[in-house]
């Protein structure tokens, strides 16, 4: 068997990715008390993002999934330029962002974010018109496509499904429902005609019956305007519904990435398998589940970072395959196990591509059967 190719951060696809992240590290310094400082102890460092490579192509919806504390929100915030990376770089259309204010300003117009809670994201004392127009004013745009501000705001509101837009101009956020507020937030992104939207749990604060409509809107934006989307979510059902590719994060690293159908129905990594097993479903309580809490990014284990919780290590599967020592002692990068489908797992790599583990989640029987 030939040595599988390792994920180098460069794609086989010829087109330049809209956003590319190379070997990104973000860490947060803890505080040291006076006593501990005098005793010579240094601050704990949380490595929230610990070496991430990622590419987002035009018109692609990429879901970033994982438990809370895995670094998915920090990664999204860093891509937005809201956190400063310790190492690594972010490229927009092939150009490194660096620290140039001018490039960053342009970048922040073309990459927009949708936060989880629209009520917190909107200023309660600003009218809907002001909230949407503010983005234009910050970027000094008075006319675009031959349209004045008012028409641009109206067009953005209409595109996000608030029709007729004029009816919403003078309303305040408290006069709208949760779903409408999220549409206003999305209009605030659209008014700048971005190439990329980063959405951090875009529907988890919304009512269940409203979620579908917001997801339809997001997918429509991709189809109509070719906007690339990075959707941060803990909900694999959501990833299944809208994403082209899924990246699963664990303790600051992407441990598996690939096409949605592949990752969510034929996962290689034991962590992805564990996540799929806790998706609530009828009869799901009898399925095996991981014990323990979400891990602590100040104490990342040696070797494969998942090995202390890995069911394959505990059950002796890894030992039987002769990789247990590597699991415990050897850190690893993503390995391409199927075309476009990468996972960071010694066991999956040792087994190669021949033996796929069966899907833990067979499709629900069709209705009426």
């Amino acid at each position: 068997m030939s040595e599988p190719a390792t994920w180098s951060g460069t794609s086989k696809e010829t087109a330049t990715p809209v956003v590319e992240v190379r070997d990104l590290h973000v860490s947060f310094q803890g505080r040291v008390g006076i006593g501990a400082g005098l005793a010579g102890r240094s601050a704990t460092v949380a490595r929230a993002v610990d070496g991430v490579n990622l590419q987002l192509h035009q018109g692609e919806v990429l879901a970033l999934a994982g438990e809370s504390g895995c670094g998915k929100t920090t990664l999204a915030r860093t891509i937005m330029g809201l956190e400063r990376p310790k190492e690594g770089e972010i490229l927009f259309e092939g150009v490194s962002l660096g620290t140039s204010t001018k490039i960053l300003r342009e970048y922040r117009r073309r990459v927009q974010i949708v936060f989880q809670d629209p009520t917190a994201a909107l200023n309660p004392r600003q009218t809907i018109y002001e909230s949407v127009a503010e983005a234009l004013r910050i970027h000094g745009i008075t006319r675009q496509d031959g349209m004045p501000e008012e028409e641009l705001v109206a067009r953005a509101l209409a595109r996000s499904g608030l029709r007729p837009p004029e009816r919403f101009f003078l309303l305040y956020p408290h006069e709208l429902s949760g779903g409408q507020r999220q549409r206003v937030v999305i209009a605030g992104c659209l008014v700048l005609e971005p190439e990329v939207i980063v959405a951090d749990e875009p529907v988890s604060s919304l009512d269940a019956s409203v979620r579908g409509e917001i997801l339809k809107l997001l997918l429509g934006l991709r189809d109509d305007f070719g906007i690339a989307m990075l959707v941060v979510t803990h909900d694999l059902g959501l990833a299944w519904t809208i994403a082209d590719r899924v990246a699963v994060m664990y303790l600051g690293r992407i441990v598996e990435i690939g096409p949605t159908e592949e990752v969510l129905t034929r996962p290689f990594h034991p962590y992805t398998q564990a996540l799929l097993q806790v998706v609530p479903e009828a009869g799901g309580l009898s399925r095996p589940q991981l014990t323990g809490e979400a891990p602590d990014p100040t104490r990342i284990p040696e070797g494969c970072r998942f090995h202390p919780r890995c069911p394959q290590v505990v059950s002796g599967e890894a030992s039987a395959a002769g990789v247990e020592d590597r699991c415990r002692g050897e850190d690893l990068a993503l390995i391409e196990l199927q075309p476009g489908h990468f996972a960071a797992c010694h066991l999956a790599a040792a087994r190669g591509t021949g033996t796929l583990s069966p899907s833990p989640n067979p499709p629900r029987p069709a209705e009426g059967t």
Partner: protein
Amino acid sequence: MTVLSVRDLEVAYKTQVGPIPAVRGVSLDIESGEVLGLAGESGCGKSTIVNAILRLLPAGTQVSGEVLLNGEDVLAMKPGRMRAVRWTQASVIFQGAMHALNPVQRIGDQLAEAIVIHGQADEREAMVRVGALLEQVGLPPRRLRDYPHELSGGQKQRVMIAMALACSPSLVIADEPTTALDVMVQAQVLRLLNELQRELGLAMLFITHDLSVLVEVCDRLAIMYAGKIVEEGPSQEVFGRPAHPYTAALAAAFPAVGDPRFRRKPSGLGGDPPQPDAVPSGCSFHPRCPVAFEPCPDTDPDLYPAGKGRRAACLLVRDGVEVTS
């Protein structure tokens, strides 16, 4: 034996513009050893029902109907009797364990307090009981000396569960017990609740907006919309083959991973859940209903039989038309 029986419960909150109905005629029964799931979106009145059962509603709220707890009408109890019944007969696991515990008191003391106040044991015996309770919910008994901030979210929720069990109630109400928790921890807490419920033969009312969680833990489901139950029946059947169009829409919001019917096809309802002060006429769901027809805006449907052990409040069900496409 029927532990909880709610009959024609109506609750209207007092506001400056007059009473606003939050619950508009709800009846439900829970047998001992049974788990009933109550699902619905924010503002549908599900938490109001919890508060009505334990009489925790603000003063001035209009409540009518009957809430029979082990055969005794809660709404007619004197305050002293009410205090005795709370926790010894019915207890609640509230949502957001993070805020429900006193941050400056050791968790052991908080648990013991509930036992001592209800006169079930003196302080020494109570502490022994607390140790056993913690063990029951999967925490080492030595943790009773911890303060809430020393525990993780999942551990705090376990303490809340221990607290709900402290006085051996016959009914436990779980009000969104896992919403604030992470996916992996949520699965652990759900399994714990499920095991305890079976072991102790508890009657349980499980409330959440997450239909997929309810299917996992409940025997029967009741779906609420705008203050009324619109569908009820065995949970797998209600979720798998909804009779009411609202249930169908709600079920579709929780897609099964791997099911091609949901792939790249987000489905939802237009519009928003109604405000309690502006509930539409007739069937309250008709403005958002994909299959509404002429009589819907004028006729408020009752719960009609919809198969074995199932009922649904939809005129199509009354007329025997299959709703699910």
